[in-house]
């Protein structure tokens, strides 16, 4: 039963992922990417990680993709359909895909990418959030801090990039700005 669901999710994820790069309209691409990310969330549930699944939907589907759509719509890429369907990058791209598949295939065949799934009951799942929280703040505290620092740098960088010259008069005469 579980395997059946896995194959359904995996199939939809792959088909939508292919559609993301093959449709010509940027808004449609974003739509298929949403579907793809939702399937990944479903696979997280099959991997006994409801917390990661919820966070995946919350962050990626709920927030990141909204920003993607916002950017696509503001820049109006949606109307301007990509003309070159296959352009000069196709050769390196195919090479990289084949190399990736070879490496993945080797790892899967050697059993390096698999682990026991464990039991699927409420008592185990209930502790899921706690386990992740503890692991993040003890065992993985260093990577965790590095990532938060990186995000902070990105935030400050984004603000610096969009900061305008203070001397110019502002366009909006908004309250409290």
């Amino acid at each position, binding site marked *: 039963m579980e395997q059946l669901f896995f194959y359904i999710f995996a199939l939809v994820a792959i088909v939508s992922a292919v559609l993301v790069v093959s449709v010509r*309209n940027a*808004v*449609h691409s974003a*739509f298929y990417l*949403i579907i793809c990310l939702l399937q990944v969330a479903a696979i997280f549930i099959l991997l006994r990680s*409801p*917390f990661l699944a*919820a*966070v995946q*939907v*919350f962050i990626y*589907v*709920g*927030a990141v*993709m*909204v*920003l993607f*759509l*916002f950017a696509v*719509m*503001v820049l109006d890429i*949606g109307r301007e359909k990509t003309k070159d369907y296959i352009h000069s990058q196709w050769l390196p791209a195919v090479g990289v895909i084949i190399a990736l598949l070879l490496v993945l295939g080797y790892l899967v065949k050697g059993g390096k990418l698999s682990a026991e799934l464990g039991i699927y009951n*409420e008592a185990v*799942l*209930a502790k*899921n*959030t706690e386990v992740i929280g503890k692991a993040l703040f003890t065992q993985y505290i260093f990577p965790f801090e590095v990532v938060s620092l990186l995000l902070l740098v990105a935030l400050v960088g984004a603000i610096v990039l969009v900061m305008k010259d203070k001397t110019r008069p502002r366009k*909006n005469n*908004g*309250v*409290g*700005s």
Partner: protein
Amino acid sequence: MMIPDISTILEVVLIAVKVVVVTMILFGLPLPLTWLERKVAGHIQVRLGPWRVGPHGLLQPFADMIKLLMKEDIVPDRADKFLFTIAPLLAMVPAFAVFVAIPFGENIVIPVINKEVSLYISDMNVGILYILAISGLGVYGIILGGWASNSKYSLIGGLRSSAQMISYEISISFAVIGVVMLSNSLSLVDIVRSQGGSLLQWNFFYLPVGPVWCAIFIIGSLAEINRIPFDLPEDEGTLGAGFHTEYSGMKFALFMLAEYVAMVSVSVLTVILFFGGWNSPVPLPIPIPPIFWFVAKVAFFIYFFMWVRFTLPRYRYDQLMTIGWKILIPVSLVTILITGFMRI
């Protein structure tokens, strides 16, 4: 294939029945709610509201329903047909899916067959995260619907909606984290249990941070479900009808259905997170069924949201952004620090 035993089958049937019952209730709710909203609007503005169709205009929602069903379903000529058709569903499905994780009471025992039944479809241990995640998906209906209409008003409505959602979701999440810190659980059933006893145990009365979290949650939620004073995506003064300018008939009705169901879910969440869920406010000598308290509190908040809608004017777009980024988020950050110190 293994043949499941009788109790498993019964369990599956029970879940299916619960899903159907909840869905039917949610489909039915907008009928009385539209009537109530117009009546509340009427009386706040010193007029009668619906009056002609049936006594006190009670049959008005049915008249509206017939009108919406009979209306021509227009798809604009240059619209993106696929996304235009699917957008109302994208708005509606998440609004309903939220109710999978919402509990309506403790377990009850059905008298005749003597079976214990839980008053929720699923008590997830990440329930509140699930609700935040799923309710955030409703915005895609608005964004994609606005884009697919191929109309500038719709497009701007969709854009506004996405920016507004991103801005206010942060402070809502902070408010929910605050509640999780007060109740020590992500499961909604446990959050309600932690508020048992009396009025003073409710998260709202956890002074001084409780009322602040509640205010942040309600303001943020008003913005998320696009109701006045934050209904910029459908600002009729400047945008025609906003994201649903091009929608008519049943597709328009689905958007409205989603909006009403979202309002109910926000009322339910406010009650569960801050006002003790189905717990009674004071210990009473006579047993009153918990579901009564739950429905009464939810009804009050539904009325409250209507009251707000017809009392406050709409904010300007820059005011909306100022409130979100420059007031709610700093206040949330400070409050989370205070809550943390209080919970040590």
